[in-house]
């Protein structure tokens, strides 16, 4: 373990640590563009220059390994002067079109220029012009003039996805990022190049020009797109609603979690939030009688569900829970089912198209909480519940989230089941062909509209936090279940999702010892999970 000093501070770092990371140990940020901790070292941008005692000239920190006794200085006059000159080089051909650049406000050219820039440009020649606003693929758009040729995007496609779409073509000041002619940047992780591009060269076609980044608010969350549970930030636009025609969720960005998703998320997860602000959101409880639907109050809806549960024998009630529900919801449901002694319950409904999977992040199971449902004893196959309905054994069927009509189950069988049940209750965020056939529809808050936790496929319990208010009268599932429990005479127990989590942690052994505080920002493994046992 080499011991060195950075700006006078003694530190010890693991052997092989480069000077950018070593400086971080000392709380010092070395400005840089091309270095990225998960990509190979390119040494391309030259901005990370530092002084090393006894070295004749400044050295790039990213490609220098910390050595015992090294004395590193990051803020000498010489280093500051060097940075300034390098910034000047980077900007020689830069178009300086920040006012129309979507990256403005989170651009590392702007940030470093404010800190280290040279304020009087000395270039009098015409700048080299390059292609602007070139769509590279479904999600990413390129402005070659703004590119500083750091090659992060190229290395991402070479080293992370292995798809190799991008290259740096031509030479000298005509060099530009591009695709092999005739191809597209359409790999399953393409959006990540926008995140790692330090400047406005690569921007996001979906987010572009929706809203300026300084109007965004963020909440730490977890992707609900598959069983991986990638850590994300939800960026919402509350302050300039008119800028995006009422779209509240502006974008999802990956949040680093070394044990789950490193720096990345897949495109399906990144762009999969459209349903949150979609027109088909369910906004109020509704009742359908004889083919016509009408709005109802929550009290009426809860009363009707509670009455059915009270009136019917447990065998006449079936529940299709969902592995998309949070642990808190599932535990509240578990409690309700225990009280009512309902045993006809399952959560897994086969998707019509089997999910894709790869060796990077994407999991075939597109549910964020299958393991949580399993640990709560609710994770079973829902087929027996459907069959009970078809056999006219059920009088009430409560479906959470699933569109059974879009599952792999034959449509005719689903229809048969739905027709055979007196009272269908549907709880979900958006209308679908199943909700259309329900007698009671209870609108649920989307995951970004509430707090909760999911348990990923490895057994990592991770929190997601509320980013926006629920649309209309939507409630989190645990909230409506709480109300049903109260209507059945249970003492009200929860005003926050966290209360349900506390109860869950005392009852379900796998969750013993966990709390929201213990989960922190990056989650904790349940007891006995495969990942907890595997050597790290």
């Amino acid at each position, binding site marked *: 373990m080499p011991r060195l000093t950075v700006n006078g501070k003694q530190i010890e770092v693991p052997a092989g640590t480069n000077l950018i990371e070593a400086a971080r140990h000392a709380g010092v940020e070395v400005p840089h563009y091309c270095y990225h901790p998960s990509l190979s070292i390119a040494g391309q941008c030259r901005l990370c220059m530092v002084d090393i005692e006894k070295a004749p000239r400044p050295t790039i920190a990213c490609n220098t390994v910390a050595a015992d006794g090294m004395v590193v200085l990051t803020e000498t006059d010489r280093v500051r002067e060097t940075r300034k000159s390098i910034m000047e080089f980077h900007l020689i051909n830069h178009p300086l079109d920040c006012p129309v650049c979507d990256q403005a406000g989170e651009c590392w050219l702007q940030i470093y220029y404010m800190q280290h820039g040279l304020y009087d440009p000395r270039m009098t020649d015409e700048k080299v012009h390059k292609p602007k606003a070139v769509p590279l693929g479904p999600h990413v758009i390129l402005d070659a003039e703004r590119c500083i040729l750091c090659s992060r995007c190229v290395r991402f496609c070479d080293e992370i996805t*292995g798809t*190799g779409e991008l*290259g740096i073509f*031509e030479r000298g000041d005509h060099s530009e990022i591009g*695709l*092999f002619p*005739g191809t597209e940047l359409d790999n399953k992780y393409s959006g990540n190049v926008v995140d790692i591009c330090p400047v406005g060269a690569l921007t996001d076609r979906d987010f572009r020009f929706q809203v300026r980044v300084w109007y965004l608010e963020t909440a730490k969350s977890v992707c609900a797109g598959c069983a991986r549970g990638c850590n994300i930030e939800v960026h919402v636009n509350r302050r300039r609603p008119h800028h995006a025609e009422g779209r509240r969720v502006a974008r999802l960005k990956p949040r680093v979690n070394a044990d789950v998703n490193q720096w990345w998320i897949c495109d399906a997860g990144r762009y999969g939030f459209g349903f949150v602000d979609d027109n088909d959101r369910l906004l109020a409880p509704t009742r359908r009688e004889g083919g016509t639907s009408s709005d109802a109050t929550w009290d009426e809806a809860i009363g009707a569900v509670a009455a059915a549960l009270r009136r019917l024998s447990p065998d006449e009630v079936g529940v299709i829970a969902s592995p998309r529900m949070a642990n808190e919801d599932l535990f509240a449901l578990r409690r309700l089912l225990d009280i009512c002694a309902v045993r006809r319950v399952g959560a897994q409904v086969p998707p019509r198209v089997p999910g894709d999977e790869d060796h990077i992040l994407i999991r075939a199971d597109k549910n964020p909480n299958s393991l949580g449902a399993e640990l709560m004893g609710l994770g079973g196959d829902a087929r027996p519940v459907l069959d009970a309905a078809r056999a006219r054994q059920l009088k009430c069927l409560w479906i959470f989230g699933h569109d059974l009509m879009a599952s792999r189950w034959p449509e005719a069988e689903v229809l048969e089941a739905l027709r055979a049940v007196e009272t269908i209750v549907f709880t979900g965020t958006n209308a679908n062909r199943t909700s259309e056939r329900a007698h009671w529809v209870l609108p649920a808050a989307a995951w970004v509209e509430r707090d909760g936790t999911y348990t990923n496929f490895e057994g990592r319990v991770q929190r997601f936090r509320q980013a926006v208010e629920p649309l209309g009268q939507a409630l989190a599932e645990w909230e409506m279940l709480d109300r049903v429990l109260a209507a059945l005479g249970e003492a009200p127990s929860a005003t926050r999702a966290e209360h349900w989590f506390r109860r869950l942690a005392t009852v379900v052994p796998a969750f013993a010892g966990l709390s929201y505080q213990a989960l922190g920002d990056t989650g904790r493994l349940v007891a006995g999970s495969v990942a907890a046992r595997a050597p790290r």
Partner: protein
Amino acid sequence: MSEGDGYPGLTDPATTVFSEAQLAEVRRLQSLYPDPRGALLPVLYMAQETFGWISLPLEEYVATLFGLSPAHVHEVVTFYTLYFREPPGRHVVSVCHNLSCHLAGAPGIIAHLRQRLGVDPGETSEDGRVTLLSVECLCACEAAPMMQVDDRYELNLTPTKVDRILEGLA
């Protein structure tokens, strides 16, 4: 890279491929370098000699010989000036425009060639006979102004000498 699906490339497969003997040469060249990728330049020259120029399908074909993505072969082809990205004329005339030749009258030589061939540097005469290029120093300053015609040097040029040389090009 996931097995099975190749790197993104053109939909038309390359129709231009090497002979067995050339493939053996590719393997020999690759074995000369610690990283076989080092042989990319000589293999691209082989390709250019065989097919006259480096088309996109040819880049893609060469990429498969190295297990590289076509984008990375395209990087190399676009970086260097000696690979033709369009079919050149039957002869390539490269006039030096660097300092010594410039002082010794290269601008006049280039102007003369433009007028005789009816093309600008970088273009090919309409009859497909000559591609005219103006290039950096070719290392024959002692005989400036000079140009390279295919693989031979023509030195101490004058407009009359240029005319004679052009007449000799079929």
